């Protein structure tokens, strides 16, 4: 019982601290926006360098969806709907969710490790002693970069999954679905709302991943195991948060559909 109370108190304390830290990061965002060069550097680090994994994953997910979808649809003579099947699954769910999981593993872990290592090597303390606020100089630009990168990466993932190197390659080039039907069905049945909901999900996931990564990195113990824990906790908590939030967002977005 005592242990359970300690766990609950520890959780609530961590939630409170991370919320206060989130507020401090948001307060530092306007200052960071005034120095776009720092943000561009971080967009390159967390966004551009994540593109390879997103492009490759998007293509393979699209190929798998096309294969699986075709096998089911062909039994009902509905293989011409393969394009819309791949597009809806990708835009509504797999685009934001798989991109977010990959982003947490690739960029979230790197953010936490980098900031944690800066803590362990006194670089953050050094900045504070030079009258430079690390939240403004280090944390906020990385947070903004992650926030901007995640929806763009999710869009690239979806394009790759649906397009020439993904679902289209398998469905049209390999399995013989008519190219006109593939694209026209997507055009006719994927609504703006589907795309918008995907964008909203990816923005929420990007915010949560960056929040978790900068929080754990900034508060990492200044030891090798402290940095390791920060990285591990970022990936684990981000992944669980993405899946839980996806359920909640989906329930609200598609209520009554």
């Amino acid at each position: 019982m005592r242990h359970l109370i300690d766990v609950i108190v520890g959780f609530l304390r961590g939630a409170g601290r991370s919320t206060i830290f989130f507020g401090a990061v948001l307060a530092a965002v306007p200052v960071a926006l005034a120095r776009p060069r720092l943000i561009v550097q971080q967009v390159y680090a967390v966004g551009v360098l994540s593109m390879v994994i997103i492009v490759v994953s998007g293509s393979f997910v699209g190929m798998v969806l096309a294969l699986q979808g075709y096998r089911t649809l062909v039994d009902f003579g509905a293989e011409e709907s393969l394009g819309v099947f791949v597009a809806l699954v990708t835009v509504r769910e797999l685009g934001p969710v798989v991109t977010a999981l990959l982003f947490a593993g690739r960029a979230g872990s790197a953010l936490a490790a980098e900031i944690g290592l800066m803590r362990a090597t006194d670089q953050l303390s050094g900045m504070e002693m030079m009258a430079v606020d690390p939240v403004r100089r280090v944390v906020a630009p990385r947070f903004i970069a992650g926030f901007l990168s995640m929806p763009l990466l999710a869009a690239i993932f979806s394009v790759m999954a649906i397009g020439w190197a993904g679902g289209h390659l398998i469905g049209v080039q390999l399995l013989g679905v008519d190219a006109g039907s593939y694209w026209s069905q997507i055009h006719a049945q994927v609504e703006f709302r589907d795309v918008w909901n995907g964008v909203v999900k990816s923005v929420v996931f990007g915010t949560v991943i960056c929040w978790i990564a900068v929080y754990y990195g900034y508060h990492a113990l200044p030891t090798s195991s402290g940095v390791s824990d920060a990285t591990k906790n970022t990936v684990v908590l981000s992944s669980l948060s993405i899946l839980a939030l996806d359920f909640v967002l989906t329930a609200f977005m598609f209520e009554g559909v």
Partner: protein
Amino acid sequence: MSTPSSDTLVRIRGLHFRFGPRVIFDGADFAFERGKVTAVMGPSGIGKTTLLRIMGGQYKPDAGTVHVDGLDVPALSRRELFEYRKRLALMFQNGALLTDLNVFDNVAFPLREHTRLPESMIADLVLMKLEAVGLRGARDLFPEECSGGMQRRIAFARAVALDPMMVMYDEPFTGQDPMNLGVLARLVRKLNDALGTTSVIVSHDVAETLDISDYVYLISDGKVAAEGTPEQIRASGEGSIRQFLKGEADGPVPFHVQAPEFKADIMGEAA
């Protein structure tokens, strides 16, 4: 105890500070004079670095007063604290260089953050500071490409980039070869005199620190055990001072941390 005068930049009175149950300072008093090099010496883990962090406002004392240039440091708001820190520099034990910036950008960092000087002027100032520490030719290297001694010298250059009123050095000589050690020691003295700044060195490197200091504090058990000019410290016959200066393992300061009787511990009989 030295009497604070109008030339006293730092006045610390009745300093009490603890980390959890561990008492670090238990009523220590310090007074650091303007324009002087003052050394704070003592064994590892005695609280020397903590003292610098208290002076820099990173830690708040449990009790006592800390005044630097008339400012009540623990009472400063965050904004006031950052304004105060623009006027001082702390050189960390490991240099704390920013690893994603090269040598030039590391030294330029405080100038770019706190001034609106044109880039050409910043470049001139950085090259002047690097010339002073003999590393103008290393401007394009990254910290990981520099030796430990070079990193300390880069940290020196960065620390004095804004010509601070006080520079605090945290173990500047630790882990240096004899040549680097001599270079660093002379550099501390030279920069202090050339810039007219005030220097506080915490160190346990006895010979080099005494050679360049104007005044020395020796701390032990959370208090100032002795203070005076380097000559007075060297001439002291007091047991703990002799033990520290001669590097003796045992004496008034025990070698062993308090523990149960050895035999009982080995036999598993200790409580």
